[in-house]
């Protein structure tokens, strides 16, 4: 039983990391209708920035703040320079551009930092906390707490501030928003910046659990896709809940289902994506796609 609870908590912690990246995907999808395939690679790049600063002797907190700022500005720059020119183009065009970005960022990171594994320090102390007689890792609990805080902050931003209202309006109806004086382009840039920031957060949370290398986020991206698909690509709440379900399922299957094991764990989210998209393409919390003829 104790083992089971540990696996579940670890699963929720993993799911929280996927959730941060899934939130980034959802944020961009809601405002621009793009699934950003490069989201994970952008996050990996920002994580390397943090690693580089820390490795160069800066304190961890400073390295993290600098990496987050870098991610935020980088996300805005990518929206402005690469995405804006193809805004409103067909799905194929957008997928190719973000895939191109995926390959480009991945290779650039390899060029700058090499292709070897790096250890990345955790922001949480190692060790275990005893909760109701069950030993749980402090790191896992910390990750879950961070994600909950992020969700709360995002909720505040979008529900309680004028800026958040403007961002929602720009996503929902760009033309009307322009008419009431909202700078839609700026809101989209801001959305991409926030998404990149969330991605970077996922990166620095997951890097200590794996090893930091250029393919750090490949797996995480698939899990985040699965979480977002399960929860509904246009629902932030769904993205988080979906990612939790994915994280827990993956960990349980990896631990208890012998045929799955550690090597085929990656098939769990794939199966989930496949089944969800076939049975209920809008996901658990998403709204079905309606097209006006």
């Amino acid at each position: 039983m104790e083992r089971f609870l540990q696996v579940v908590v670890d699963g929720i912690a993993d799911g929280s990391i996927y959730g941060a990246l899934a939130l980034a995907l959802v944020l961009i999808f809601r405002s621009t209708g793009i699934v950003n395939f490069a989201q994970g690679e952008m996050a990996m790049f920002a994580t390397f920035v943090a690693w580089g600063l820390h490795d160069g002797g800066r304190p961890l907190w400073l390295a993290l703040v600098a990496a987050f700022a870098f991610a935020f500005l980088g996300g805005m720059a990518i929206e402005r320079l690469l995405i804006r020119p193809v805004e409103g183009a067909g799905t194929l065009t957008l997928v190719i551009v973000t895939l191109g970005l995926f390959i480009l960022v991945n290779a650039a990171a390899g060029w700058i930092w090499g292709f070897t594994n790096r250890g990345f320090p955790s922001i949480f102390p190692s060790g275990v906390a005893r909760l109701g007689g069950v030993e749980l890792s402090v790191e896992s609990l910390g990750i879950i707490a961070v994600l909950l805080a992020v969700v709360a902050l995002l909720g505040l931003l979008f529900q309680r501030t004028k800026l958040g209202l403007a961002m929602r309006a720009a996503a929902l109806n760009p033309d009307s928003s322009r008419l009431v004086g909202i700078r839609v382009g700026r809101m989209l840039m801001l959305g991409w910046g926030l998404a990149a920031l969330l991605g970077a957060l996922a990166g620095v949370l997951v890097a200590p659990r794996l090893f930091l290398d250029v393919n750090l986020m490949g797996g995480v991206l698939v899990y985040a896709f699965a979480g977002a698909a399960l929860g509904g690509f246009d629902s932030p709440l769904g993205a988080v809940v979906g990612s939790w379900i994915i994280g827990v399922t993956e960990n349980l299957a990896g631990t208890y289902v012998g045929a799955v094991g550690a090597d085929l764990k990656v098939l769990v989210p794939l199966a989930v994506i496949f089944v969800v998209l076939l049975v209920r393409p809008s996901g658990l919390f998403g709204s079905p796609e309606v097209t006006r003829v």
Partner: protein
Amino acid sequence: MSLPRKVARDQDQGIPEGDQVGRDGRARPFLRIDAGSRRHRTLRGLALLAAVLIAAGIPFNSDRVVNGQLTLVLVYAVAALGLNLLVGYSGQISLGHGAFFAIGAYTAAILIVRAHVPYPLTVPAAALLTFALGFAFGVPALRLRGLYLALVTLALAIATTPLIKRFEGLTGGVQGMSVPQPTVPGWLPVDPDQFLYLLVLSVAVPMFLLAANLTRGGLGRALVSIRDNERAATTMGVDRARVKSRVFAWSAAYAGVAGALFTLTLGFVAPESFNLALSFTFLAAIVIGGLGTVGGALLGALFIEFVPQYAERVNQALTGVIYGATLIAVIYLMPGGIAGLLRSVRRRLVEVAEPPPAGGEPTGGAVLEAGATSPGGGRRPAV
């Protein structure tokens, strides 16, 4: 180098291509031919014959290393062609064609090593198996549009390598499998590298001709009409489900054949060869070569074979940088890819004019380029 371009020019004619609308006000071409006239067909046949002869002559004038590279170019070209049928013509996005390529490759390897099947039979076997699997995958994929299909196929691409490793008894696991390569028959006075090249060429040429015919015929028109406006296409009587699942199957079969040829060419298969990067590379090939063109597959294959050869000498990461930057640049600067660029050059030299419709109202001397017709090809009713 004259070979690929000739093939490209020749086979691209008559393929409706949304982005490639003929430009007004261009200089008078050197040559003007009526489409479908005897002269047109003769020239086209001669160009094709010349291209095939030149292609067949290449391995006798280059060294073994180059022949090996060119053989791989042909292999990749067949795979890219299949992907282009799907992505370029029908507009469905697959990021997972490396998976079908892998299935074809392992089908050939397992048949040869474990069942001792003679190698010429492995190519059709791989084609049949991947056709069936592609069909089985294409039917549920019908429900998935655009992005979602991209996600599911991405999942397929990621699952390939771990799955191959898992079925160790069959696939040889991480170590991979050594496969005896085809031996040169005694009556043929050629070296092994030349033989392999000619063997792959003898499969690739019919595959290209088949694709040219598929895309020019009813299926091709139906595909393009679905890509450009699915609703209008269905209204006009195009059976969306049938056409889409069929093209998925064809496309998978092309990848499967290419995979089998890959095994025969290299004589070795290993799980790491079929990673996500392979699927991305195929997609890069068709975007850079030219989406929705038959010749673009060959041009793209040249790109993905030779760019890494030179880039890796500078830096291991340079290939990725070039691929990524080129993908984005092509989308912004020349959506038709290299084939599109070559086609516009060709149009300056040779103009293929549609003859005025017999018995119809005169079109006022307007020259209708095949590429400039409506997406539905001839299906558009006269307005």
